[in-house]
């Protein structure tokens, strides 16, 4: 029996338009006073104080979070809204021979389907546009979308995905980045798998190593990490009668998101409105468009607002994750523990598409020497494609990886030389005016201050 819940005029009680339910008419319990949209509450002192800077002012958005009133995308509902789901690749590397959506399209409750061929410009990406919105010729990792469905409910859309028939022809799967370096199987032919690299050279590293009293050589490796925003990616698209599309999106970068939309949809930017709602956690994972073009086109096809909320699995497999690094560090020091030379080679597992690898390899390479004065430095880094989840922007862009390496090796050096770990850092740390690995003069430098303040707070006794 179908029922249609509506709100009565004062928005206080639910009315069920259904005779049987009407007998169980909603009863408002006077003493409880539950509220939906309260109140004007006093602001905290910090918000009212001048000067404003330095105040631990509370957040107006936090008040709404606490009341449960913040509208994240998934909380927004429009009349006649329908729901989209994206079918993910069943293969990590394969040619797509055919995609048949007819059976899904014929299902009751399904409004439309979409494949990559229907997307005006089916590529995107912040550095290289090497990623399809929906794969139409090749899938390069299991998170690639191959087709989308819009239906009356998520439940129906989910069932419809099962009716889409995709025929694949297997291609060799390359998972190991060191294997990928050999270029025996190309993931984006005819391009090499090594899709970006970076070199930093300062001084004469071989000379510096030759002059060193001790040389340390270590390899460090890191893993894939997921951002885990507690809010999964979500967006809603509404294509209107003027041919203008509005997107409500959990994207953290709407201006550039609009450029991506304009490019993929082949639509003037003036015809696109991106609204960034309150985002339930980003950490770098929500810095690129994902399914926004798909929803826009499904809305255009169906004349309805279309929403898609990622499942937690979508979040893991199809949004970006943190780059694993393989890092070879060779460091020469003198007897006092002063670093004379450091030679670094790094391989970044780039996953299936470039995404924000350019920034990651750049920051990773520049930062890899650590916050230390090193006259002789050579850093060489390569990013390679593999048939795994795309690695992209994530809190720190390569810095947590290289910090793990340079700080682990610092302790190795300290241990061998019998120097306290705090002391060896103080001996090498940047000072105001130090030259960075790119020979930039640094200002407002407080490495030493942070080391000493932390040691004091911790109660660090130098060994």
């Amino acid at each position, binding site marked *: 029996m179908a029922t249609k819940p509506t709100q009565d005029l004062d928005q206080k009680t639910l009315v069920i338009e259904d005779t049987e339910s009407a007998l169980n008419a909603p009863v408002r319990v006077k003493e409880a006073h539950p509220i939906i949209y309260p109140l004007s509450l006093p602001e905290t002192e910090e918000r009212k104080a001048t000067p404003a800077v330095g105040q631990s002012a509370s957040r107006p958005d936090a008040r709404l979070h606490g009341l449960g009133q913040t509208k994240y995308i998934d909380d927004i509902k429009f009349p006649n809204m329908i729901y989209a789901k994206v079918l993910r690749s069943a293969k990590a590397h394969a040619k797509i021979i055919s995609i048949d959506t007819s059976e899904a399209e014929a299902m009751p409750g399904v409004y439309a389907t979409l494949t990559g061929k229907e997307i005006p410009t089916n590529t995107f990406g912040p550095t290289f546009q090497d990623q399809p919105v929906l794969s139409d010729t090749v899938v390069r990792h299991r998170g690639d979308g191959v087709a989308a469905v819009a239906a009356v409910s998520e439940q129906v859309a989910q069932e419809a995905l099962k009716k889409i028939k995709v025929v694949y022809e297997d291609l060799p799967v390359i998972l190991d980045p060191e294997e990928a370096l050999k270029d025996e199987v190309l993931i984006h032919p005819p391009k090499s798998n090594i899709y970006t690299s970076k070199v930093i050279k300062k001084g004469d590293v071989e000379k510096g190593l030759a002059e060193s009293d001790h040389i340390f050589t270590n390899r460090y490796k890191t893993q*894939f990490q997921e951002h885990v925003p507690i809010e999964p990616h979500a967006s809603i698209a509404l294509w209107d009668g003027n041919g203008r599309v509005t997107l409500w999106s959990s994207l953290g*970068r709407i201006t550039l998101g609009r450029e991506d939309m304009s490019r993929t949809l082949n639509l003037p930017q003036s015809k696109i409105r991106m609204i960034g709602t309150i985002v339930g956690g980003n950490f770098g994972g929500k810095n690129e468009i994902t399914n926004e073009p798909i929803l826009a086109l499904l809305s255009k096809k169906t004349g309805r607002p279309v929403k898609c909320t990622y499942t937690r699995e979508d979040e893991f497999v199809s949004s970006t994750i943190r780059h694993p690094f393989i890092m070879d560090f060779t460091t020469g020091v003198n007897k006092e523990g002063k670093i004379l030379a450091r030679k670094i080679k790094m391989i970044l597992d780039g996953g299936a598409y470039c995404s924000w690898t350019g920034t990651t390899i750049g920051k990773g390479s520049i930062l890899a020497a650590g916050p230390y004065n090193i006259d002789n430095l050579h850093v060489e880094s390569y990013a390679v494609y593999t048939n795994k989840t795309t690695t992209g922007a994530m809190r720190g862009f390569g810095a947590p990886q290289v910090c793990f390496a340079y700080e682990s090796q610092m302790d190795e050096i300290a241990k061998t030389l019998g120097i306290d770990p705090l002391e060896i850092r103080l001996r090498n740390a940047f000072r105001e005016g130090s030259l960075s690995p790119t020979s930039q003069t640094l200002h407002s430098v407080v490495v030493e*201050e942070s080391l000493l303040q932390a040691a004091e707070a911790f109660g660090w006794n130098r060994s």
Partner: protein
Amino acid sequence: MKKTGKGIACMWYPIGFTVMANPSAATVKVNTDGTATLLTGTVETGQGALTVLGQIAAETLGIATDDVHVVSGDTDTTPMDTGAIASRTTYVTGNAIVRAAEAARQILFEAAAPLLNVKPDQLEARDKKIQVLGFPSRFLPISKVAQHAETNVGKPAIGSSSYNPPTVEMDPETGQGKPFNTYVYATQIAEVEVDDETGEVVVKRIVAVHDCGQPINPMLVEGQIQGGISMGVGYALQEEILFDSQGKQINPNLTNYIMPTSLDMPELDVQLVDNYDPTGPHGAKGVGEPTAVPTAAAIMNAIYDAVGVRITTLPATAEKVMTAILEKNAQEA
């Protein structure tokens, strides 16, 4: 037996994009009652950016945080912004806001100057007043000045501006150049307890001392650091996406992808280094990403201090630590 150890790690981290332009624009409108509206194209992604940006505008205008309403995140109404990425919001968008607010404030100064019988550059905006530098008793309430500027002078106090951190291209052969305009620095020290029979690592305490230039909102800075550390603890000990031999993720869910819960987080002592960056908005730099940078390194060094094993691949799961302990014991025997 449980063995304790301590480990230290320091780091540096840049603000903004690597060389590439990453501008922000902003518009500040002073209302006739002395409150203001800030338009920014960035998006609130949880870090408290909008509150901090509002504080920056308020500071330049000499008004309170609550006097500024922030409009954000709509390409139809808000100006260009590179977005919530690369720890750039406070610094880059903040600098754009300072400039926009200064432009609006200049209109107020010009409107107030004849009334106070001084030149515009002899005025300052403080405590909701436009006052004469060095003579704070000679002032007009900002509301009066804003009203005067709009209704008498006919020039509403609206300012727009943009900012992009100045950089110098890196040489393709040597990487030499100036990829960023500023950097932040930090140290974290971890204390761990390692069970030498199971390899289990419990992080007992982390002291984190970070630089963010002048903190605009110390409470929100602390919150960023605490959250970044939790991401670092997970990175150090638990979190890893695993793939099978066919490239399929094995653990794409929160049951089997192990991020820290409230029971896994250590006691935190978070502090800020006293600092001021003259290139930043009111001396501020940024803090978002660096908070997660040194944690894993500090924990690995603490494990080494506790049980003498060097973990060279993350994460240091109990099994990995135990395997290393058993290997060490075998070598020593």
